[in-house]
């Protein structure tokens, strides 16, 4: 049946900020859904609080509400827009939960709108553990013995009956928050408590574990006519026990016979039919490796991270088709968008192998537990395509960041045999490296299989890799050996290191024997039909089917996996870069490896190379395409880091040159430049040894900011206050990066200001200045920041504009530049310059309506700002306020220090937008899900340096608002000196108070600490590291105070808003 005629206006709910378990994939699926609906002539209204997304672009939907995703705001928007239908299946668990509660509260009925694609009953049946189990039993699908529990007693009773190991899964959460394994009663109690607390309804499922079985997923679609298809199945490298988001995943399944494949396929169809889902869903199975027995693990009744992966792996746009189905179309009425002349009602077949590899944040959170389990910890992922598994795996590994050349990890290679065995026994992020190392040392595949449960097929593939390593290091590098190694995915660097061959000699063999990759198309049909979609991957084979046009082309290098410090905002920049290039008449080619993003959607660019961003792969694409130029400033630090090697190979980098990039990133050279320009910067030194470091301390004095050079997101950056801390830092963190010296700068206490500008070589345009709420020292990504700046005097703004213009000029910036300044009340200092797009570009572009990326692209193509209609200098403020609030994922990463500092910790952000600051702040907090306590107890512990009048003034405000203050002995005394009542609490009592989760939920009242941006629970968790004192000192009571002061104001604003009149409809969509 064709689309329902009664649908004229539809609201799409987005997924909000990026958190672990809910990342860029929903920008991709939501954007697809918007496009799919809009092309039907239906008015499309989008609601999302995440400003870094493509979907919140004015081009994607007819109306965009950058508003908090909660019932209060949704109801207002629905009331105002009166849509005919709501699509909630594209906004992850957030969108789904929100739609469910709106339906339950009668909001949808009240406004005569209905849920499209999903219905309440399907969601309930799929997500409520009890209902799901009864349904499976009813239709005869196997499930493990389990119990639904809401009390610890029920859990213990079940454990006595079913035995260990047990697995705990909370109901209604995303990314498995609060889930885990229990091997004994102690673990059981802990996991069950966590689970009940994390479930929105305090309910958990406790089941007998099938750890060791194969974990298989199917992506299924169904339409209203009951047509069902499988898009793709996937097999996890790790057996059941690791969250699929944390597993290495291969598509399609590799070790299943047809009979097994079809058994699970049939089960998938039966389940989706029974749930009556219209659209896409993901079904996870465990399959016994020793029989064909299986069990159904779970169903996600919506598009998901897995469906984004399946879409990219198979070339089938699940979200787009799901949106069409929601409108009433059936699969057989839709076309295959890739071939454009066959039907969408078919099952994609792959003629390649796809490997997904997770990107974990453990490099940022060195204290966080690395062990993997049922709770997802990865922030992002990469995907690689090749015609064999080994090469797809190696490509994925080199995709993780540009530095990895092979299946090596120095920290694993240095382990003793015993340590290695132990390491292999633990499921953590480094296990695959340990397995490879064991194989190198002669371990047998079946031994490794027994100790890990990983299928021997995968282990044999790893062995093929290590065998090739040995051949390379022992045999002469013949053309045939080089070809075999290349075919298996070895990088040039790896081959060079292992064989000892010179690069020039290798290059000769390569050229004489024509050993270069060819590009094959992802076409959904294994080559059976002609496809029109230019989506390519490389492999070593005979035929290259990539057609090179004679148009002028530009290659845009993407940003790789989502990680802390480099999120979805860079994908926004790349996608806009592509669009701007197309608008300027160029063929825009994108190269990226992140399956979750819009940039890797097959219809975003003129040509998509789904490739690792390793230098070898980038050069191969350049060799193939011969673009006029390459853009490296949109893909964050990932693409920027390629600049040097591209420049060395005489590749034309569009915009700011490598020399300028180097000048901006080399602190010593840059500091010299600033001196010449007479622009102040915190005094600093680059030191190579500890002696030099302490000599620098003598000159500069504490506090100091220390960091290695060349960093992403302030990695391993810290503020140190004492010799002891400095010593510890130099011993611990710095070994992270030995290539470059450590930088020691004077720490400026004051206000941090961020300026993004577009420069054309002679002029700059500054769309806006954003002011941070937190004081200097907190990473800009973790700071709440406000547009426009509201506390800076005009003279300071003039200084900022002047400095920005002069710096951009001196650096010959062409394109984008981001400059972080500090203002200590007297002088403006330059903290750092990033000669690339930044986190704030999407925000400023949306808020100011200045198309920053387009202007930057035009500048790179040689046009001048003065010819571009948007003026130069500091743009006039728009009459609205935007407040960016960071969002953290600390409940996913246990044992992590949550205090804010120069190391970025947030995973995403939201924007509060309104005509007055208070409302904007309120919306920002509401959107970030922060619970703002209005009463309760506060524990304060300050170091002596912090015991200032300023701090006391802030704390006094809390006291006056009715909070009860408690403190350590010294702090109590200090507070009393200022006449602020405070009670003494010993460290033990504090720890007791914060480690007991019962207290955490309000027993001891609310507690506020640690920068205020995280939720109250974050502050408690800080105690787990045993360094509450330090956290408070660095995170700063002062910072917390500022936040709360702002938040306090917002609280009352919120009340106004709730009252009705203060709602500003005209500005809800921009």
């Amino acid at each position: 049946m064709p689309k329902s005629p009664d649908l004229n206006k539809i609201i799409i709910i987005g997924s909000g900020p990026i958190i672990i378990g809910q990342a860029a994939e929903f920008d991709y699926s939501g954007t697809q859904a918007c496009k799919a609906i809009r092309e039907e002539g239906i008015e499309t209204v989008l609601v999302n609080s995440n400003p870094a997304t493509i979907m919140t672009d004015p081009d994607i939907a007819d109306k965009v509400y950058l508003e908090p995703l909660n019932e209060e705001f949704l109801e207002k928007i629905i009331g105002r827009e009166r849509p005919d239908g709501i699509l909630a299946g594209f906004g992850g668990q957030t969108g789904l939960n929100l739609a469910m509660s709106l339906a339950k509260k009668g909001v949808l009925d009240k406004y005569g709108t209905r849920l499209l694609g999903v219905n309440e009953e399907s969601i309930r049946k799929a997500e409520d553990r009890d209902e799901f189990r009864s349904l499976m039993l009813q239709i005869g699908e196997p499930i493990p013995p389990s119990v639904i529990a809401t009390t610890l007693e029920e859990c213990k009773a079940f454990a006595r009956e079913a035995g260990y190991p047990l697995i705990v899964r909370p109901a209604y959460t995303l990314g498995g928050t609060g889930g885990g394994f229990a091997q004994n009663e102690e673990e059981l109690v802990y996991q069950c408590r966590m689970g009940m607390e994390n479930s929105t309804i305090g309910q958990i499922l406790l089941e007998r574990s099938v750890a060791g079985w194969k974990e298989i997923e199917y992506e299924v679609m169904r339409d209203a006519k009951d047509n069902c298809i499988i898009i793709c199945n996937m097999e996890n490298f790790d057996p059941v026990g690791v969250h699929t988001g944390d597993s290495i995943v291969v598509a399609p399944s590799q070790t299943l016979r047809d009979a097994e494949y079809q058994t699970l396929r049939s089960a998938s169809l039966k389940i989706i039919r029974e749930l009556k889902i219209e659209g896409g869903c993901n079904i996870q199975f465990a399959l016994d490796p020793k029989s064909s027995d299986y069990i159904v693990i779970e169903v996600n009744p919506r598009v998901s991270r897995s469906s984004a992966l399946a879409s990219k792996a198979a070339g089938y746009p699940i979200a787009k088709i799901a949106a069409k189905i929601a409108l009433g179309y059936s699969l057989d009425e839709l076309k295959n968008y890739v071939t454009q002349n066959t039907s969408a009602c078919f099952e994609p077949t792959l003629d390649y192998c796809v490997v997904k590899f997770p990107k974990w944040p453990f490099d940022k959170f060195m204290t966080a537990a690395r062990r993997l389990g049922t709770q997802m910890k990865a922030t992002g992922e990469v995907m690689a395509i090749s015609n064999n598994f080994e090469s797809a795996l190696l490509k994925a590994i080199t995709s993780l960041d540009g530095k990895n050349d092979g299946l090596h990890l120095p920290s694993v290679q240095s382990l003793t045999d015993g340590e290695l065995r132990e390491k292999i026994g633990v499921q953590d992020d480094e296990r695959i490296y340990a397995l490879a190392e064991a194989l190198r040392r002669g371990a047998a595949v079946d031994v490794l299989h027994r100790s890990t449960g990983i299928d021997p097929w995968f282990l044999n593939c790893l062995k093929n890799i290590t065998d090739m390593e040995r051949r390379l290091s022992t045999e002469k590098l013949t053309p045939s050996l080089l070809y075999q190694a290349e075919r298996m995915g070895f990088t040039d660097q790896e081959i060079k290191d292992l064989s000892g061959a010179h690069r020039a000699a290798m290059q000769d063999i390569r050229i004489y024997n024509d050993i270069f990759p060819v590009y094959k198309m992802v076409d959904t049909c294994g080559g059976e039909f002609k496809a029109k979609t230019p989506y390519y991957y490389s492999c070593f084979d005979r035929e290259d089917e990539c057609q090179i046009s004679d148009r002028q082309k530009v290659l845009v290098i993407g940003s790789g996996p989502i990680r802390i410090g480099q999120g979805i905002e860079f994908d926004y920049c790349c996608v806009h870069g592509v669009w701007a290039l197309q608008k300027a008449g160029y063929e825009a080619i994108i190269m990226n490896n992140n399956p979750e993003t819009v940039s890797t959607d097959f219809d975003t660019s003129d040509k998509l190379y789904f490739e690792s961003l390793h230098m070898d792969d980038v050069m191969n694409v350049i060799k193939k395409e011969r673009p006029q130029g390459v853009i490296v400033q949109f893909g964050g630090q990932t693409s920027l880091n390629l600049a040097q090697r591209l420049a060395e190979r005489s590749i034309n980098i569009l915009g700011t040159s490598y020399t300028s990039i180097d000048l901006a990133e080399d602190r010593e050279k840059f500091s010299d430049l600033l001196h010449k320009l007479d622009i102040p910067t915190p005094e600093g030194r680059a030191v190579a040894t500890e002696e030099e470091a302490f000599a620098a301390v003598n000159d500069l004095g504490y506090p100091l900011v220390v960091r290695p050079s060349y960093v992403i997101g302030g990695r391993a950056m810290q503020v140190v206050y004492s010799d002891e801390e400095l010593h510890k830092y130099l011993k611990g963190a710095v070994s992270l990066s030995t290539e470059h010296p450590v930088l020691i700068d004077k720490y400026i206490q004051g206000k941090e200001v961020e300026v993004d500008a577009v420069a054309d070589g002679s002029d700059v345009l500054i769309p806006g200045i954003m002011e941070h709420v937190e004081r200097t020292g907190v990473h800009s990504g973790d700071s709440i920041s406000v547009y426009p700046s509201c506390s800076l005097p005009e003279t300071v703004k003039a200084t900022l504009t002047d400095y920005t213009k002069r710096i951009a000029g001196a650096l010959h910036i062409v394109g984008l530049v981001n400059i972080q300044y500090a203002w200590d009340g007297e002088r403006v200092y330059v903290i750092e310059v990033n000669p690339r797009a930044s986190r704030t570009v999407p925000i400023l572009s949306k808020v100011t309506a200045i198309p920053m990326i387009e202007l930057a692209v035009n500048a790179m193509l040689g046009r001048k700002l003065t010819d571009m209609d948007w003026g130069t200098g500091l743009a006039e403020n728009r009459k609205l306020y935007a407040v960016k609030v960071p969002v953290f994922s600390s409940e996913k990463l246990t044992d992590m220090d949550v205090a804010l500092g120069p190391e970025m910790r947030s995973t995403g952000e939201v924007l509060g937008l309104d005509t007055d600051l208070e409302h904007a702040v309120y919306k920002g907090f509401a959107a970030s899900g922060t619970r703002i306590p209005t009463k309760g107890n506060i524990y304060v512990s300050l170091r002596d340096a912090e015991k200032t009048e300023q701090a006391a003034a802030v704390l006094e405000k809390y006291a006056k608002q009715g909070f009860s203050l408690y403190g350590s002995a010294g702090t109590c005394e200090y507070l009393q000196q200022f006449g602020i009542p405070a009670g003494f609490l010993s460290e033990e009592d504090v720890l007791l108070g914060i480690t007991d989760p019962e207290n955490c939920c309000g027993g001891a009242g609310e507690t506020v600490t640690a920068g205020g941006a995280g939720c109250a629970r974050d502050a408690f968790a800080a105690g787990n590291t045993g360094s509450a004192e330090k956290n408070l000192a660095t995170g700063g009571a002062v910072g917390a105070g500022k936040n709360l002061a702002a938040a306090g104001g917002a609280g009352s604003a919120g009340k106004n808003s709730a009252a009705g009149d203060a709602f500003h409809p005209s500005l809800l969509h921009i």
Partner: protein
Amino acid sequence: MDGLLYLEDGTVFRGRGFGYPRTSAGELVFNTSMTGYQEILTDPSYAGQIINFTYPLIGNYGITADDNESSRIHAFGMAAKNICFTPSNYRSVMTIDQWLFDMKVPGIFEIDTRALTRRIRSHGTVKCVISNQGLSPSEARDFCDQAVLRNDHMKRAGVRQRVRIGGTGRRVAVLDFGVKQNILRSLEKRNCDVYLFPYGSSADELMSVNPDGLFLTNGPGDPQEAAEAAAEVKKLMGRVPMFGICMGHQVLALAAGGKTFKMAYGHRGGNHGVYDKETGRSCITSQNHGYVVSAQSVILSGMEITHFNLNDGTVEGMRHNTWPIFSVQYHPEASPGPNDSDHLFDRFMDLMDRFSPNLRPAAAGGINTAKGGGHHA
């Protein structure tokens, strides 16, 4: 050992050889299934063909004792991107390399299977030579020139004499053009009393066991080569319920007076959508055919098109306007592929229950469903 694939037009693909050292000539086709290589290679419908697998990792789960569709490999050779020599599956008993060796079938791997597929797509199926005996291209060319490809493999792919397979229920006469085991299993599962008849059986012989229904199987080759079988079947139309699959479907079309023609490169895989006009729904099908029934010709012969392919609109199923006869071009028995259409066997059971000649012995003028109406429902 070196492997070589020589195409009639002179194109040469070099790779590595595996399986049995041998040189053979056949029709080059490709299959897009991602699983089921064992079922595909033992499917008698591939007799005379050399199969190029589009899925690049073949042999991963080895060879099992349970997945054969007939007692041997019917394909004349196979080509793959990668062959797995260290398979993993609890049922695996040997590698595909060993199996091909035992079955005396040559294989070639590490060739550009996608390029080969694209070539077949644009030029159609082609005569080719596969060799893993170190043949030079010119030797291969000579071999190719001398080889005569047959189109009548259906005459030899099935049983040589009548075979009865147990069962106490409905009696089914199966005319064997090279039946897949899973078709027989699908009938056995429904407790049918199955008589397997060799190619060349006459109408009288088929009726001699007093069947409740006649089943026409899949099989290799050009259906027009099976003209005598079509002639015998024609004699029985209207006398006994019939169900045909693949070759059986094509023979039915010819028997009714319709035509078949060769497709450029056929349908081989497990992922095509087929639309069922009677239910208004679609299903995903297992496909293996190089010939297709001409829609126009069968409509003029009293048939109605019931199913068509969603990609190219070709005939995927038909039934007779008057008699209880129906057929599908695709494979409802799956193996390999999706088993979305298993219910078609139930439909055959239903037709036999209602229109078996044994219900109305010697009814003059045969059986007619048009008035009964049930067949159309």
